[in-house]
C-alpha cells in the first residue's frame, strides 16, 4: 500500500510499539474496544470514523475489502505511516504519489460502502458527524451543507449537466480535484519526531 513512501524511522517504530502494547493491554492484536477506551477521543466528533479507519482493510492491503475485527502491530504501523511528513528532497512525482496515498486514505474514510464513490448519503453522513455535537441546529443544516457541497463538486468535476443527468457520487479523481487547493501532503502529518513516550494519555 505504498509503504515505501511513508516510511517511519526505527525510533518511531519502537515508540509506536510501546503505545500499541499499552493500548492492546500487552496482547498481540488490537481491537476496536481498545481504541474506544482512549479518553481523548471521547470529545472527537468523528471518533467512530477514525477508529473504523484502523480496521479498514483497504488501508493496509493493496486490494483489501471490508473491515477486520482485530489488527496486529504491522497494520497499526501502516495506518500511522499515512501521517508521516514527506521527506524534503523528493521529486514532483514522488510528492504526487504521497499526496495520492494520503488522499486515498481520506477517501476511504468517507466511502464507507467501498463502491468507489462517495454518494450523497455518505457525504451527508460525513457532514452530520462533523456537526454531531451541535444539536438539532446542526442536523438540519447538515443536509443543506452537504447538498451545497455536492453541487459544487459536481459543477467543478463534470461541468454543465442536462436536467436529466444524474451525478453518481464523488469519485476518487473528483476528490483529488476539489482538494487541489489544500496541501495535503504537508498538512496531514503528526510530528512524530517530538513524540515523547512518557507523555502518554491514559
Amino acid at each position, binding site marked *: 500500500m505504498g509503504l515505501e513512501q511513508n516510511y517511519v524511522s526505527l525510533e518511531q517504530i519502537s515508540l509506536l510499539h510501546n503505545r500499541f502494547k499499552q493500548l492492546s493491554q500487552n496482547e498481540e492484536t488490537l481491537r476496536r474496544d481498545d481504541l474506544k477506551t*482512549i479518553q481523548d477521543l471521547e470529545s472527537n466528533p468523528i471518533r467512530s470514523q477514525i477508529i473504523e479507519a484502523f480496521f479498514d482493510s483497504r488501508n493496509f492491503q493493496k486490494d483489501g475489502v471490508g473491515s477486520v475485527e482485530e489488527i496486529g502491530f504491522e497494520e497499526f504501523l501502516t495506518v500511522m505511516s499515512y501521517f508521516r511528513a514527506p521527506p524534503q528532497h523528493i521529486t514532483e512525482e514522488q510528492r504526487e504519489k504521497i499526496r495520492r496515498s494520503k488522499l486515498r486514505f481520506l477517501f476511504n474514510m468517507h466511502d464507507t460502502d467501498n463502491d468507489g464513490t462517495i454518494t450523497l448519503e455518505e457525504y451527508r453522513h460525513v457532514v452530520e458527524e462533523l456537526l454531531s455535537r451541535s444539536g438539532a441546529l446542526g442536523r438540519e443544516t447538515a443536509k443543506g451543507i452537504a447538498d451545497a457541497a455536492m453541487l459544487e463538486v459536481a459543477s467543478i468535476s463534470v461541468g454543465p449537466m442536462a436536467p436529466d443527468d444524474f451525478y453518481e457520487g464523488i469519485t476518487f479523481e473528483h476528490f483529488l480535484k476539489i482538494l487541489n487547493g489544500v496541501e495535503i501532503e504537508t498538512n496531514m502529518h503528526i510530528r512524530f519526531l*517530538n513524540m515523547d513516550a512518557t507523555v502518554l494519555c491514559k
Partner: protein
Amino acid sequence: MELKMFILVLGLLVGSGSPDIGPNQGKCSDSLDPGPQNQGNHTLTPHSKKNFPVLSFGYDHVRLPFEISLWVLLASLMKLGFHMMPRLSSIVPESCLLIVVGLLVGGLMKLVAEVPPVLESKIFFLYLLPPIILDAGYFMPIRQFTENLGTILMFAVVGTLWNAFFVGGLLYGVCQFEGHRLVNVDLLSCLLFGSIISAVDPVAVLAVFEEIHINELLHILVFGESLLNDAVTVVLYHLFEEFSSVGTITVMDVFLGVVCFLVVSLGGIVVGAIYGLLAAFTSRFTSHTRVIEPLFVFVYSYMAYLSAEVFHLSGIMALIACGAVTRPYVEANISHKSHTTIKYFLKMWSSVSETLIFIFLGVSTVAGPHEWNWIFVVATLILCLVARVLGVVGLTFVINKFRIVKLTSKDQFIIAYGGLRGAIAFSLVYLLNTDHFPKRNMFLTAIITVIFFTVFVQGMTIRPLVDLLAVKKKQETKRSINEEIHTQFLDHLLTGIEGICGHYGHHHWKDKLNRFNKKYVKKCLIAGERSKEPQLIAFYHKMEMKQAIELVESGGGSKLPSAVPSTVSMQNIQPKKPPQDRALPQLSKAREEEIRKILRTNLQKTRQRLRSYNRHTLIADPYEDGWNEILIKRKRMMELEKKISQMNNYLTVPAPAPDSPTIARARLASDPQAWGLKSLTESIPTIKVDLASPQSPESFNMVDEIGKKGSQPKVSEEEDGLTMKVPSTTKLRKDKTANEDDDKEPQQRLMRCLSDPGPAGEEDDEDEPFLH
C-alpha cells in the same frame, strides 16, 4: 489634461493654506491676512458709526483644522491622480510617488519662503500610525499567522537583535577608523542608531507588498516580522537612550533588558487582549443600537494602543492583539452593515494615513536639518543590506530544521529583499534629544537615505524580480465549502490520531483551545443563538449570504452569479432529494418557463375557482378575498400534520435505511416537514422555486401556491406531503395503520373544501413526473 489640473490644484492648496503642523509657527498668519473690505470689529472709532461688517475674514480660529483638512485633501487627490495614470503606477509603487510629491511640495514651500512642516513624532505615533496597524491586525489571517508563529518570532526577535548589534557595532568601528569628524560618536549612540534602523517597517512593507500579490506564506512572514519587531525596537531604543546618558552598561542592565523585553511584548499583548474582550462583550448588547457598533471597535482598539503607550509597552502589539481578539466575537454579534462599515472605515483611514506619512516623509526631507557625511551614510547603507541578508540566511538555516514546509532560497531572497525601512525609524530618530546625541542630524540624514534607498530601489525592483524569479503568487481562489468541510475533518482526524498515538501535540492543544473557546468564551461574548453556532455552519451561512447578495446585485434570477454553480442543479445530484428550504432560485429562464407551463396546465382545472390570478408573476395577492379562510384552514392542517408526524416518526425523519423506492420516496416526501411548516408560515406571497427532481412527484414549492387564492390539486399533495402524498398514499396504505388514515381523512376533506378536484387531480401524477 488631468495632470495639469492636479498641478494647478496642488499649487492652490499649497499657496492658500499655511500648512504648519510642526512646531514652527512662522510668519504664516501675517502673510495670510489680506485686507478685507471691512476690517474686524477691533477699531472702534468713537465718532463715526461703522458699517455693519457684512463679510469679514477670521482665519485664525479655523486654522488648525483647515490645514489638516487641506493636507488630507492633498493626499487623497494625489492618490486619485496616480490611479489615473496606470502606466506609471504599474512601474513605480505608490509609496515612491507619494514621497516624490512630498519632495515637490516641500520644495515649493521652501521657494515660497515658508517653513515646511516636519513629520512630528507625536502626530505620527498618535494619529497616523494606529489606523494602519489596526487595519492590519483586524484583518490578520489568524490561521496562517499561528502556523508560522515560530518562524515569525525568530525573524522578529533574533533577526532584529542581530541587525541592531551588527550595524551598530560595525558602524562604531567605521567611525573609529574614519577620522576626526566621526571619532566622538560613541558606542552607545551607534548601537542606538543600529537598533532604530534595523527594524523592518510595517507601513512600507504593507505599501509595497500589497501591490505585488505575493503568496500568503511570504506575505505573512515579512509582515508578521515587521509587526512583532516593534517590541524589540521599543526595548532597545529605551535601553540605549537611558544608558547613553549614564554612559556604561553592566550585565545587570542586559538582564533587565531581557526582562523588559518580555514585559513589553507580553504586556502589550495582554493589554490588547483585555480591551479586545471588552469590545467583544460590549458588542453583545448592541442589538438595539446598531448605528454605533463600529465605534466601539475603533474606540476600544485606540484605547488599547494609548494605554499600552502610557506604560511604554508595545502599542503596536496591543493594537494587533486587540484587533485579532475582537474580530471573531464582534463579527458574530454585529449587523452586516456594521461589519461593512468597520471594514471600509479601517481601509479608508489606513489608506489616508499611509498616504500622509509618505508625503510628509518627502516634505521632511526637504525641511529637516541635514548633515551629510559620505562615509557614514554609505557605510550605514551597506551594513544594513549586508546585515539583513546574513541574518535571513542564517536564521533560515536554523528554522528549516523545525519547519515542515521549508523555506527555499527564493523565499529567503524575497524575505531579505522585503526588509524595507520606513517612517517609524525616521520618527524615532527625530525624537532624539540633540544634547545627548550631538550627531542627531547626521543620523537623520543617514536614515532618510536608507529609507529612500529601500523604498525606491527595493520597492520599485521587487515587482519585476518577483516575476523574474517566478515566485508563487497569491491564489485568488475563494474558499469553497468542500475545502472547509475537509479541512475541519482533517483537523479532527489529526487530533484523533494524536490521541491514539498518545502524543499531546500541536493539534491536541489547538483542539483544547477551541473547545474551551466554544464552551466558555463564546457563551459570554456572543449574543443569543449564535454562540452555539459551529464554525462550519457559520461559514456556510456566510457563503449563502454572499451568494444571495451577489444574486441581488446581478439583477435577479436571469443572470446567475458566478458563485452559484449554474451548470448543475440539485436534481442532478440527487434524484430523490427532498426539497430545500432555500430561497435562492437556481433556475435558468427556460426552466422557469417550463415550471410555469406545468403549473398553468394543472391550475386550469381549478380555473373557475380562481378569481384573479396573475400567471406571469405567480405571486399571490394577499389582499384577495377569502384569504383569512385559507389561513385558518392552513392552521388546522398544520396541527393535524403535527399530530400525524408525531405518530409516525419514521416517516418524517429521513432514516437512511434502504427500502423500496416508493417507501423511500414517500418518506422523503415527508421530509419537508420542517421546511413545509416554515414555508407555510413565512413565504406566503413568494414563490420558492425549488429544484425538485424529475422523479419525485412531490410538489416542492406548490406549498406556496397555497397562498394563492383558490388552490390547485397539488396543494393537497403538499399538505399530505407531511404525511404522505396522496398518490403514494395508496401504496403506503398497506404500511400505515388505520388510525392514520382516519386522521388523514379530515385533512383530505379539508383539502376538498379548498379545491374541488382534489384527488382526481393527482391521477396523472404517478405517471408523469412533476417536472420533466
